[in-house]
């Protein structure tokens, strides 16, 4: 199942990268503005998918609350933009505060006047929140479905909180970013969006390398160990709580970055980012792409969202059916996802079924053992 099965020629890898970089640079000229914006958004979603893959695909923690961290990152970025471009509004604070009679910037938004603080806050705050939630949950050995339910409940807590607080964060309406200014440029403008697209593309690649680095080596082995047999990891002398907390906060940080990028490209952040369906959708991107394969998470996020927008444009009612069907199909028929299927025994089995490839003859017992070993 591991990538090492595929040893590519160095030249192929090099040319792949050259083509990829060329495509990224050329994308703004190849695609119409609307499609480019969509692609940028979906690429930013693939960063949160990488996080989900780290915690679910590698560590076996199915979090249904990644929307929290996604939205937190988005709110940090949006608030910075709102504050920096609020000079013409009364009291030099963002416009919406005036609607609710707030005259002074709430104290916790004060640090967001600084771009450097915001730059760090976008990923550190979600990571800290994730670490805290994770630590509290993991410390009690709450796992499996209980973990999923608790993360979903936390998601609802945050959703209700953000939805209800007009005076602090504009409640249901959320924070708009497309009419704000960044370094004298309108964030929603075409040139700015092009830059955001490039930043997103670079960050996706960076996040991919980072995730690869995380799952490599002993740390990654422990994560997989926790997924496959947690008591055994504990009895071997490792403390799973620490590893789980770390990986969960890494996923939270990735979600924060992703949320910030998504916000500046979609033009608004609102509590809708913290709805239950959105967080579960993140899981399906990874599941379809192939959990436990990082590339699968990226491709899954981009392709499913692209399919979603195409299908929704053509037949608005049918997307829910397709999405529901995808959930069922992936779980029952394709548990390893598309990429996992390709890298695993999938194509060979398919060819064998049509009699195009000879069956590999081994002892049955050998095959069984091999299967078990493959889970690692």
């Amino acid at each position, binding site marked *: 199942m591991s990538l090492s099965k595929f040893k590519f020629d160095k030249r192929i890898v090099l040319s792949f990268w050259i083509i990829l970089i060329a495509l990224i640079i050329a994308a703004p000229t190849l695609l119409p503005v609307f499609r480019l914006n969509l692609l940028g958004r979906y690429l930013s979603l693939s960063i949160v998918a990488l996080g989900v893959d780290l915690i679910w695909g590698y560590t076996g923690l*199915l979090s249904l609350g990644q929307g929290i961290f996604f939205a937190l990152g988005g709110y940090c970025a949006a608030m910075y933009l709102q504050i920096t471009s609020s000079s013409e509004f009364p009291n030099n604070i963002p416009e919406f505060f005036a609607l609710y009679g707030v005259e002074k910037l709430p104290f916790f938004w004060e640090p967001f006047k600084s771009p450097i603080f915001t730059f760090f806050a976008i990923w550190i705050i979600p990571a800290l929140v994730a670490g805290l939630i994770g630590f*509290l949950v993991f*410390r*009690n*050995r*709450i796992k*499996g*479905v*209980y973990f*999923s*339910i*608790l993360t*979903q*409940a*936390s998601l*609802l*807590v945050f959703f*209700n*909180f953000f*939805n*209800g607080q007009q005076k602090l964060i504009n409640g249901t309406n959320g924070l708009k970013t497309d009419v704000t200014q960044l370094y004298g440029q309108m964030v929603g403008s075409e040139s700015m969006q092009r830059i955001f697209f490039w930043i997103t593309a670079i960050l996706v690649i960076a996040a991919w390398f980072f995730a690869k680095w995380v799952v490599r080596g002993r740390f990654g082995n422990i994560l997989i160990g926790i997924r496959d047999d*947690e*008591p055994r990891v504990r009895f071997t002398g490792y403390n799973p709580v620490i590893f789980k907390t770390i990986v969960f906060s890494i996923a939270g940080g990735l979600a924060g970055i992703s949320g910030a990028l998504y916000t500046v490209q979609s033009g608004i952040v609102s509590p809708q980012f913290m709805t*239950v*369906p959105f967080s*579960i959708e993140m*899981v*399906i991107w990874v*599941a379809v792409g192939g959990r436990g394969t990082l590339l699968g998470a990226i491709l899954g996020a981009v392709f499913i969202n692209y399919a979603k927008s195409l299908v929704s444009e053509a037949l608005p*009612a049918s997307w*829910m*059916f397709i*999405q*529901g*069907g*995808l*959930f*069922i199909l*992936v*779980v*029952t028929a394709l*548990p390893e996802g598309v990429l996992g299927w390709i890298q695993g025994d999938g194509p060979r089995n398919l060819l064998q079924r049509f009699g195009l490839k000879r069956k590999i003859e081994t002892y049955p017992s050998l095959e069984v053992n091999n299967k078990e070993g493959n889970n690692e």
Partner: protein
Amino acid sequence: MDLLLDSLFNGVAIGSVLLVAALGLAIVFGLMGVINLAHGELMMLGAYTTYVTQLIFKIPILKPFYNSYIIVSIFLAFIVSGVVGILLEKTIIRKLYGSPLETLLATWGVSLILQQFVRSVPLAYGTGLVISLIIGLFLPSTFPLKIKESINFKYFKFSSWILAALTGVLTGSVISSTVSKLSRASARNVDVTAPSWMRGQVEILGTAFPKTRLMIIVITLISVIAITLFLNQSAWGMRIRAVTQNRQMSDCLGISTEKVDIITFGIGSGLAGVAGVAVSLLGSVGPNVGGNYIVGCFMVVVLGGVGNLLGTVLASFGIGIMTDLIGAGRLLSIWPNMPLPLSNTINFFATTSMARVMIFALIVIFLQFKPTGLFPQKGRMVEN
């Protein structure tokens, strides 16, 4: 005294909605360990069943019995949701026993499909589909043993499915031609109007209670008593408990675990339907009505301790009373001149959504001390 009674009643009313919604989940999740995220949508089906029943009872022939439609709809909702649940178990969940996370994702997919189904299929034909499902699933089991054991049984089964499909199409078209409101698909919310004897209020001890709330409490009480009796007194109840405790041993002793799974899941889903009737009395019914309850239900089950009905009952009433206490800011009226910072905090949380924030936070804190809920199952396993 008045205030206390009022608060208690409100709390019990909120709690009983939670309880009736969580009861089915407590059985499915608690006894079978299956996470059913489509539970909310099964509730929604129950609520829509109430709506359809109400409209059908407006047909001139049934008009004299209109006032009793709500009673009929309780049974119908149980059957409709139960049958959909059984179908779900037979097709999807059966393949996923032992992998709860996969079940969770698959049932989420089911819930999406069900939501879109009520949006884009006319309710009349939906009714027809459910009727054909009922006939198709249950007709074969009523055949005499001689046919059941014959080698041609599959043909009988097949022909009963054809019969079921024909009946379904027929009833669907009859309903859509007689009740015009059901003949078109619509994504809009619909309203269930309570029959005249359920409108208004009753005065108990000088306080007025809305009758619909009382009705919900009665429905909840009856469901809890019925399910407790079923689990503890009937033969199938005993088999269900046996399979819960030790599946392999029960299997060895000749209990058909497959049948037990179907019955347990069917009853759990059916109870979701009953909960749907209760929910339809509270507000308008829409495709998303189930989503409002599902997380709360899970919290009730987790808080109460998995596999324990008493825990579920206590947890839901506890949450109900707390919600009322916090959401209506009642502590303030009990203790009017409390220090300012405290009263400010209480006012901050005195809305429905902020009360939810507070309740969930409290539950998470509670689980820090008792990770397995109020009444944990005892065991010596490392993993359970």
